[in-house]
């Protein structure tokens, strides 16, 4: 951050102001698109917190999105909560789920954890279908009609900014460095006196909160949810691809990845929806084989830039 941090911060402030004013001038389509971009930034950034920093790959992060969506939707539809507290409750519900799942699963070594997370998603989908009384089962859950796209736009923007700020704070702290030691060499970290189990659990809880909040917001925005729509493997894939492409373990990598991939998705791939997953698969393979650190990670090591870039 030695290189003109003031210019950087000024740029960020201008960008924030422009985004704050955008709903006044933007089209309905534009506002909705930006809302989704914010959602992806929050999701990719959250995945990065656990997987990018500790190296524990979560193949089921959409589970927290879905848990937040269901918690929020149930509170809105059945308990009559306003959407904003319901969204926060969605985040809390995702954290509770992360605690229940993380306490046993984070003791598992890397690949075991990855598969356990892959299974978690299927399990949650089965459970939400099963408990029909609460969730509406396979026929889904409808929320009362509400036109709140602009307020939800701001809420999503805050969620994206919140996740990014959180990442910055973590990466610049000793807590963040300790999370990285788990990725680098977990045994050595333990032997140096780092309580790796506790650190992993904290990172996991933090990484669940964002998806929980944006899940509830997305549920409110769409007005209707069902198990298939909130637990798709495709959502996990998308956040992983975004974070990997931009650069895992960095502050701005997931943001960059989300912007680049979301924009190309809207402009280019919308015309070829059938090859979407194929392209994502190819991007994952290409990044892993050719650019394992992602775009920013590559620049960072090449030009010796700090991780906060």
């Amino acid at each position, binding site marked *: 951050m030695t290189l003109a941090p003031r210019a950087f911060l000024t740029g960020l402030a201008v960008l924030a102001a422009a985004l704050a004013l955008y709903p006044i001038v933007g089209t309905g389509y534009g506002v909705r698109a930006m809302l989704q971009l914010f959602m992806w930034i929050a999701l990719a950034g959250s995945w990065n917190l656990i997987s990018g920093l500790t*190296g524990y*790959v979560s*193949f089921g992060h959409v589970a927290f999105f879905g848990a937040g969506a269901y918690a929020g939707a149930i509170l809105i539809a059945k308990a009559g909560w306003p959407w904003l507290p319901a969204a926060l409750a969605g985040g809390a519900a995702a954290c509770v789920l992360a605690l229940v799942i993380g306490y*046993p*699963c984070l*003791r*598992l*070594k*890397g*690949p*075991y954890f*990855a*598969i*356990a997370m*892959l*299974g*978690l998603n*299927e*399990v949650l989908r*089965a*459970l939400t*279908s*099963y408990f029909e009384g609460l969730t509406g089962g396979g026929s889904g859950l409808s929320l009362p009609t509400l036109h709140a796209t602009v307020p939800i736009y701001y809420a999503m923007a805050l969620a994206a900014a919140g996740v990014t700020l959180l990442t910055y704070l973590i990466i610049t702290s000793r807590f963040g460095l300790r999370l990285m030691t788990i990725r680098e060499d977990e045994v050595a970290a333990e032997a140096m006196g780092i309580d790796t189990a506790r650190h992993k659990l904290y990172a996991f809880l933090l990484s669940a909160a964002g998806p929980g909040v944006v899940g509830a917001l997305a549920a409110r925005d769409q007005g209707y949810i069902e198990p298939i729509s909130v637990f798709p*493997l495709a959502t996990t*894939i998308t956040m*992983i691809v975004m974070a*990997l492409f931009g650069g895992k373990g960095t502050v701005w990598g997931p943001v960059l990845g989300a912007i680049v991939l979301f924009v190309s998705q809207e402009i280019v791939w919308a015309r070829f929806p*059938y*090859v*979407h*997953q*194929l392209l*994502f*698969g*190819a*991007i*994952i*393979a290409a990044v*892993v*084989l050719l650019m*394992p650190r992602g775009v920013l990670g590559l620049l960072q090591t090449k030009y010796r830039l700090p991780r906060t870039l």
Partner: protein
Amino acid sequence: MNVVVTPTMVGQVVISGILAGALYAMVALGLALIFGVMRVINIAHGPLLMLGAYTTYFLYAGLGLNPYLSVPVSMAVLFVIGAVLQRTLVFRVVDAPELSSLLLTFGISIALVNLAQLAFTSDLRAVEYLTGSWGLGPFAFSKTRVLAFVFAAGVTTLAFLLLQRTRLGRAIRATSQSREVAMVCGVNVGRIHTITFGLASALAAAGGALIAVVVAVQPEMGQVWTFKSFLVIVLGGAGNYPGALLGGVLLGLVEQIASLFLTSQLSEVVAYVLLVVVLLVRPTGLLGGRQT
């Protein structure tokens, strides 16, 4: 829930569990081989099984080939596909951190599913070859499941004979014990990796061919098999090949017993809880395996 469990039901469940278990064991042996030899968890294992199922479907629908005769053909086709995947992509991450191999095979997995959707559409396909059941005293077993058991047991036996009795099998086992030692003993490790990946894909393909007669063939049928195969090798102990047999039968039994008390929707939940519990209580598997 009021369930009255009769001895007949128990017998039916136990035998059904063993029938299903042989299939699980065969498919999981493939995943176990790749993990044992290369320390790679192949997330694309299930999608490879899906390609095997499609091979059988098209041979049946196009050429009218008996699905059971197509088992070796599906295996051969997938052996080639698996070997090509290894030669072109996977070999690059064998020595990389596990994060890389997990992500790479994950990418291959979603690409394969999407390719199948493009090439074959998402329509459900059925191989309607055999229906009905065979009765045995008070029990009744669907013919397709009995045949799946017979073929799976046969293929698994052949795979074990290959591993135990042949030069190639010894080289594979040596490589999974210690790559350095295998290299020193003149084993071409790269070639063994390719063959292992092909063999593992062929085992998945056999599974695909056998369940094509039982369930609908569609592009997303495979993913759950990656998870189940993984569960089997965890139950049996990673890197412990005979353990996969025990793990397969155990998973078959647990699923069938769970189906007595729970709706089928929740049987995956049971399998999941089983996975987590086993990993926590016996991280090296029930039979014990090697540490990663």
